[in-house]
């Protein structure tokens, strides 16, 4: 064990953790909006709208994240027509390609989490709202959505942790995130065990924080 290497690589790895956190937070914010949008489509009565939303979540939950990120980064990069469009400004950057892939992926899972939360809301609660003369729209935004968010907290907490670990795939498209920098240090020191232990410890610490924040929120919004 080379403890000196573990200590000297720590600041470099912590610096790279910032990129990991940026990727994670951007993907989670975009993913939450995408997920909410598709969850609302999923509970829609129109079969075409409903099937479309189902198809989206089916494709993105049914394929590996690594394949998705490769298709978006290397795949779209091969289409010559795309390179002459405005879209290329975004798709040229590995950073945005990673965020697009992560957002679409976590969005698919989030839509399923929120959909099941919507469906567990007891009809009695909605009926109670109607009987008080509240419009359906207000019932949806002021009653259904808050309850759904509370219901989905434990599952969503899991999704955040999964996504946090998923960001390590950003290193496959040249981004220097936590895993990317760990690999870079290994490529010059040839000592994988020491460096991956430190990197793994940082991931574990992030999981610890996320887990406790979610637990706190669960307690705060319990009823």
């Amino acid at each position, binding site marked *: 064990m080379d403890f000196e290497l573990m200590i000297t690589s720590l600041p470099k790895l912590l610096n790279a953790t910032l990129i990991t956190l940026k990727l994670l937070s951007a993907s989670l914010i975009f993913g939450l909006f995408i997920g909410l949008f598709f969850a609302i489509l999923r509970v829609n009565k129109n079969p075409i709208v409903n099937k479309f939303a189902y198809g989206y979540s089916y494709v993105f939950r049914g394929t590996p994240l690594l394949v998705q990120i490769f298709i978006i980064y290397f795949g779209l990069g*091969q289409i010559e027509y795309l390179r002459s469009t405005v879209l290329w400004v975004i798709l040229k950057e590995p950073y945005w390609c990673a965020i697009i892939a992560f957002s679409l992926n976590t969005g698919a899972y989030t839509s399923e989490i929120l959909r099941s939360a919507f469906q567990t809301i007891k009809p009695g609660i909605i009926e109670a709202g109607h009987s008080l003369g509240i419009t359906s729209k207000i019932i949806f935004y002021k009653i259904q959505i808050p309850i759904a968010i509370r219901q989905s907290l434990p599952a969503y907490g899991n999704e955040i942790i999964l996504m946090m670990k998923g960001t390590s795939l950003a290193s496959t498209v040249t981004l220097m995130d936590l895993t990317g920098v760990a690999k870079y240090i290994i490529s010059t020191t*040839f000592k*994988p065990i020491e460096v991956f232990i430190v990197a793994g410890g940082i991931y574990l610490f992030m999981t610890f924080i996320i887990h406790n924040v979610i637990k706190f929120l669960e307690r705060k919004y319990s009823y």
Partner: protein
Amino acid sequence: MNIIKKFSLGVLITLFLSFSANADKIKIGTEGAYPPWNSKDASGKLIGFEVELAWTLCRYIGQQCEIVEQDWDGMIPALIMRKFDAIMAGMSITAERQKAISFSQGYADEVASLAVMKGSDLEGIDTPAGINLTKPNAAAKKALKTLTTALSGKTVCVQTATIHQNFLDSGDVGKVNVRTYKTQDEVNLDLASGRCDAALAAAVAFSDYAEKSGKPVVLVGPTFSGGAFGNGVGVGIRKDDTELLNAFNKAIDKARKNGDISRIATKWFGFDASM
């Protein structure tokens, strides 16, 4: 119960047999993704200059060999952790790597070069045909200056953990935006897509790609050798494995004397890259 006992005994025997069968085989690790040094054919079989050379060297050593595949970025750690006994993967002999492993004498040498897509503004850089960085002369120093200006602010793509990355990180050509990839294939893809302004690798890796893909990849600037680019390609061996190191050195001597290395090199590179 009896069935379970018989089954586990069977497993144990199989395990034992497979261990003892492998005991006297030399395992050689290669990447299989760096043509023409080493690559794979359509059926997934390992081919290339080093694969053919490895079989020749094993014949001279007089021992059975097995060639195994290993990702480039884990090559040296895998050797140290005894997943195989020797590396033949276009790995240049550099001082940095020699801190971790030993190398046999060199068996072939390559020059590195920058490549761009046709029509790039880097196409007309005015430099000598080749520079050696071990003891750079005035012309080489001037060429590095020209490159520093030309590459400033550009994105240059390389495979990770290579001499090419070391060179760009060394600051000899100033501060360029270095982007690293797991394989040379991925470097080629992003060079063609336009995400990289230029790429740096063995000159043969680019000419091989241009030929096979039909993409307008052109070599620019000088060819590089010496210095960060190391002193030829050799067989990587664990430091404590001096017996195997000697065996490989002798085998390389014999193969060189009999003209095997030049013959195989000419077959795969189209020119004699042996040394």
